[in-house]
C-alpha cells in the first residue's frame, strides 16, 4: 500500500497537554513542504485518516508499519502501558518528544504523593477513575531510539530530528547545558551580573536560552543536562537567595521524576526533616 520511497511518520499522544505535537503544526513555513516529502500516516490532531487520505479511518492503536513514530506524553494507565508496546512493534524508529514522554512530565508529581488522595481531591466519584499510581516515561516501557527534551520541545530541534531519522542519520542535538546557549546568544550571565538564581548550569540545552534573555533564571523545563553537579548547583541557588523549599519546588516541577534529581531531598535537608518527624 505504501510507496516504498516515501517514509512514513506517525504521531502519538499519551498523558500530556498536546503542546509538543502542536509544535509540528507550528512549523507554518515547513508543514506543507514536509507533507510532500513524508507521508504523515498517523496524526490524529491533524487528520482522521490513516495513510494520506485513502479514507481509512485512523484508530487509537494505528495500523503501521511506520518508519518514524513521535511519541508525546507519559504512561499513566494500564491500557496506555499496553498501547506503547504495540506502537513500538509497528515502528522502525521511536522518538519521544517532550518532558512527559521523556521524564514523566508534571503529572509525575503524583509519584511523590498518594494517588488515592489526588483522585479524591479532584473527582467526586474517585471510583470512576482508572489510573496508575505513577506517571512514567516511555523508556520505562519500551526501547527508545532518541529522546527530545523540553516542556515544550523546540521547533527547530523537532525538524532536525525528523530530517535526521528520515535521512537515516543521528540527530545533531547537543546534550550540553543552557549556559552554552547563553554564550551563543550573547546574553550576559544573570547569576553573575544580578545574582538571579538560575538552573542553566545543570539544565539540558535546546530552548536557545530563552529565560535569561527575558531577565528570568532558567527553571529547568528541558530537564537535566548530560553532566551535572547537583550539589554545587544547590549551593549556588541557596547563595543566590533560594531556600530549601524553593530549591525542591523548582526541580520538582516539569521533569520532577528525572533520576538525576534523586539526591535533592538529601541536598535540601528534606530527608533529615522527614526522619525527625517519623521519630
Amino acid at each position, binding site marked *: 500500500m505504501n510507496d516504498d520511497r516515501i517514509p512514513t511518520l506517525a504521531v502519538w*499522544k499519551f*498523558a*500530556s*497537554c*498536546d*503542546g*509538543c*505535537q*502542536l*509544535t509540528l*503544526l*507550528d512549523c*507554518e*513555513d515547513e508543514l*506543507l513542504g514536509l*507533507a510532500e516529502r513524508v507521508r*504523515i500516516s498517523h496524526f*490524529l*490532531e*491533524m*487528520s*482522521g*485518516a490513516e495513510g*494520506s*487520505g485513502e*479514507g481509512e*479511518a*485512523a*484508530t*487509537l492503536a494505528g495500523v503501521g508499519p511506520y518508519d518514524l513514530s513521535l511519541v508525546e506524553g507519559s504512561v499513566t*494507565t494500564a491500557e496506555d502501558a499496553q498501547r506503547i508496546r504495540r506502537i513500538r512493534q509497528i515502528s522502525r524508529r521511536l522518538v519521544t518528544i517532550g518532558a512527559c514522554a521523556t521524564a514523566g*512530565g*508534571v*503529572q509525575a*508529581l*503524583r509519584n511523590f*504523593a498518594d494517588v488515592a*488522595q*489526588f*483522585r479524591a*481531591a*479532584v*473527582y*467526586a*466519584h474517585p471510583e*470512576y*477513575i482508572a*489510573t496508575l499510581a505513577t506517571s512514567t516515561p516511555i523508556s520505562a516501557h519500551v526501547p527508545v531510539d532518541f529522546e527530545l527534551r523540553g*516542556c*515544550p520541545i523546540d521547533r527547530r530541534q523537532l525538524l532536525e530530528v525528523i530530517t535526521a531519522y528520515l535521512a537515516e542519520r543521528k540527530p545533531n542535538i547537543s546534550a550540553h547545558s543552557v549556559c552554552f546557549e547563553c554564550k551563543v546568544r550573547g546574553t550576559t550571565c544573570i547569576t553573575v551580573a544580578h545574582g538571579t538564581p538560575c538552573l542553566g548550569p545543570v539544565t539540558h540545552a535546546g530552548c536557545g536560552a*530563552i*529565560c535569561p*534573555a*527575558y*531577565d*528570568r533564571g532558567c*527553571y529547568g523545563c528541558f530537564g537535566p543536562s548530560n553532566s551535572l553537579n547537583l550539589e554545587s548547583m544547590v549551593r549556588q541557588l541557596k547563595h543566590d537567595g533560594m531556600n530549601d523549599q524553593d530549591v525542591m*519546588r523548582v526541580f520538582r*516541577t*516539569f521533569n520532577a521524576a528525572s533520576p538525576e534529581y534523586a539526591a535533592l531531598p538529601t541536598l535540601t535537608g528534606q530527608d533529615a526533616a522527614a526522619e525527625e518527624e517519623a521519630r
Partner: protein
Amino acid sequence: MSHRGARILRLDALARVEGEGAVHLTISDGQVTDTRLRIYEPPRFFEAFLVGRGHTEPPDITARICGICPVAYQMTACQAIEAACGVTVDGQLAELRRLLYYGEWIESQSLHIHLLHAPDFHGHHSAVELACEQREPVERGLRIKQAGNAVMELLGGRAIHPVNVRLGGFYRVPARGELAPLAEQLRRVRDDALETVRWVAGFDFPDAQLDCELLAMQESGRYAIDSGTPTALSLPDGTAPSRSAAEHRFPVAEFERHVVEEHVPYSTALRSSLDGRRHLTGSLARYAISGRWLHPTAAEAARAAGLGDPAAGEACRNPFRSIIVRAVEVVHAVEEALRIIDAYEPPPRPHVEVPPRAAEGCAATEAPRGLLYHRYAIDADGNLTLARIVPPTAQNQGAIEEDLRRLVQSRLDRPGDSPTDEELAVLCERAVRNHDPCISCSTHFLDLTVDRR
C-alpha cells in the same frame, strides 16, 4: 427502520480535536435516546498537586494543562492570585497582557479554522489534503497563525508555554522599537484575516439550531477577553429575545454557585451546568453577548458574511457557522493587537509586586474555546491550600451532547433512506468539531459507538 435490534458501531477516532474522547449514541426505534460525549483522557491531577506549591507557581504550572491555550491559563491564574493578594495590574502592563492574549486568540482560532474545521466543509480528512485542492486559503491561514505565534514569541519568549509571564506582569517588557516588526507582520495579515472571513462565509452550512444558554464575560464597551462579568443569555428557540429580560449577570465570586460541576461515570472531565441548565461558552456565546463591541472592521466583516448586525445584538445560532464567528474574532484580535502596539509606552516597571496574604481569589477570562475559571486559596506564607479550575470544554459537554442528539435526530426524521452508520459517524464528528473541544483541558480523541435497539 433498516437497523432494528441492538446494534453497536464503533468509530475508533474522532480526529482534529485537541485530546481524546468518544461518542456513544443509543438509537431505539428511530429515536435518539442517549448521547454521551465520553472524555477518557487520563487525569493529570493538577488541582491536587497545586496544593502545597507556592503562590507564584500556578501561571507556569497551569499553562501545562493545555499546550493550545497556555496563555489563557497563565492570565486567569495571575488574575485569580492577584485578586487574592489585593493587587490590580493596570495601564500598559494590562495592555501588554491583552496583546499576548490576542496573540493566542489569533494562533488558536486560525489553527481551528484552517487545520481542524475547514476540511469538514470540503470532504477532506486533513488540511494537507485540502491544500492539494486549495493551497492558497491554507497558506493564508498558516500566515495568520504564524503572526499570532510571533506575538507570543516576542512577548512571551515562546509560543507554547511562554516564560515571560509572572504574577504582577512580566519579567521583561519590550521597548517600543521591538514591537515595530510585529506591527508590520500584523498589518500584512490583516487582509488575510478579512479574506478568511469571506472564504469561510462561502461554505455550505447544514441547518442546525443551538438549544442552550450562552455564557461569556461581558464588559460594556469592550469585546471582553480578560475582564468583565460572567453573563448568561437565554436563547429561546428561534425567536429574537428581549435583551434585558434574557441576560443575567453574576459576580465572578459567585461562579461556583451558578456553574455546578458533576462527575459522570463515563468521563474524566467534570461536566457542568449553569443554574441547572446546559450552557455553551466560546465564540458563539461571546459573539451573542459582546458582539456590539467588536472592532468596526470585524463588525463590518460579520455583516458582509451574513451573520446579521452584531451592533444590534444579533446572535448566531447555527453551530456549523461558528467557523465564521471565529474568523471574525481573528479580525478583531488583529485590529486590537495593532491598536495596543500603536499606543504602547513601556511601563516604568516590568511587574508590580504581589506579596502573599492569607486569602482566597478567583478570576475568569475568555480562552479561545470559552470561559475559563480559576480559584485559589493561599496561606500567610504563600502556600496554596486550594486550587479549583473549570475549563470551557467541561462546561460545553452538555450542550455538545444535546447538539449531537438534535442533529442525529433530524437526520433520522428526514424522509427517504435511513442513514448508514458511516454517515452518522461523519455527522457526529462534525457536530463535535463545531465546538472546538479541547479535551486535554477537560482532561482527547473521539470514538463513536452507536447502539441501535
